[in-house]
């Protein structure tokens, strides 16, 4: 499997980035990403995920008002409203999200398949993004622990934020998800980490499960 001439031209500058190459671009093309949530951060993330070459984007916002626009804006990605029987390879979730309020993880699809029956954290690479007073953040979790509840501990997500901040957070979330999908980072595996934006600065934290959380024991 290889990229077409048109794809090589389209993604040429991204392909040249260290560690991406044809292999990374092919992983993006094969990826099926569920985008759970709605709003300006979701719109920004959708745009950047499509522009990066993610092959299939499932928009799970209840209405999919941005899907048609995204499809028209970028003919390189397939954008559809999420269906209950579709299984995603990666997940980007906008906080606050009702599923996370009920459980430590957001389901990778509406009806998990037999290959995703493992418990204890996230079965697929997952990124959560939120806005909060004066900033916001992104949690990127490679498949496995910690669960999203641990990854977003202490977050007080606020739906309202400035348009420029929404754009930055959506773009940052999309970038983290593409890195997870391509498997980039230290040792060719993008690390689970949290990026907190406050006062125009980004602080990075490695992510780990809380000792008292069910995900630490794989028992969520």
């Amino acid at each position: 499997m290889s990229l077409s001439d048109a794809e090589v031209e389209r993604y040429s500058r991204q392909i040249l980035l260290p560690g991406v190459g044809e292999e990374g671009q092919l992983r993006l093309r094969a990826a099926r990403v569920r985008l759970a949530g709605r709003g300006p951060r979701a719109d920004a993330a959708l745009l950047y995920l499509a522009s990066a070459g993610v092959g299939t984007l499932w928009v799970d916002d209840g209405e999919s008002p941005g899907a048609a626009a995204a499809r028209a804006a970028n003919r390189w990605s397939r954008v559809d409203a999420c269906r209950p029987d579709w299984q995603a390879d990666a997940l980007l979730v906008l906080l606050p999200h009702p599923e996370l309020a009920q459980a430590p993880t957001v389901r990778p699809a509406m009806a998990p398949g037999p290959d995703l029956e493992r418990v204890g954290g996230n079965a697929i690479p997952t990124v959560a993004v939120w806005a909060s007073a004066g900033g916001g953040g992104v949690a990127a979790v490679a498949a496995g622990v910690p669960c999203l509840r641990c990854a977003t501990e202490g977050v007080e997500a606020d739906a309202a934020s400035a348009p420029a901040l929404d754009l930055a957070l959506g773009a940052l979330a999309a970038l983290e998800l593409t890195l997870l999908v391509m498997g980039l980072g230290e040792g060719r595996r993008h690390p689970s980490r949290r990026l907190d934006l406050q006062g125009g600065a980004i602080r990075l934290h490695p992510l780990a499960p809380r000792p008292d959380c069910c995900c630490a024991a794989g028992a969520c």
Partner: protein
Amino acid sequence: MMSRIDIRSLACPMTYVRTRLALDRLAPGEVLEVLVAEGEPLENLPRTAAEDGHRVLSREPVPSEGAGSWRVLLERGP
């Protein structure tokens, strides 16, 4: 058998994009022959390849391929 690409009809950055894709398909130590046009591509290609960790084995004009044609041999890095 040595791999070979002809990028004389391409402009930057596609010259190095095609070279990078061809190098990615080789194993470390294997050699890629690149036919490149003199001028900016000939100046940029070996430098960028070296910056990416590949080894420039040689560069020489090849009049038999047409005026301004050069052959650059690159050894894929680790």
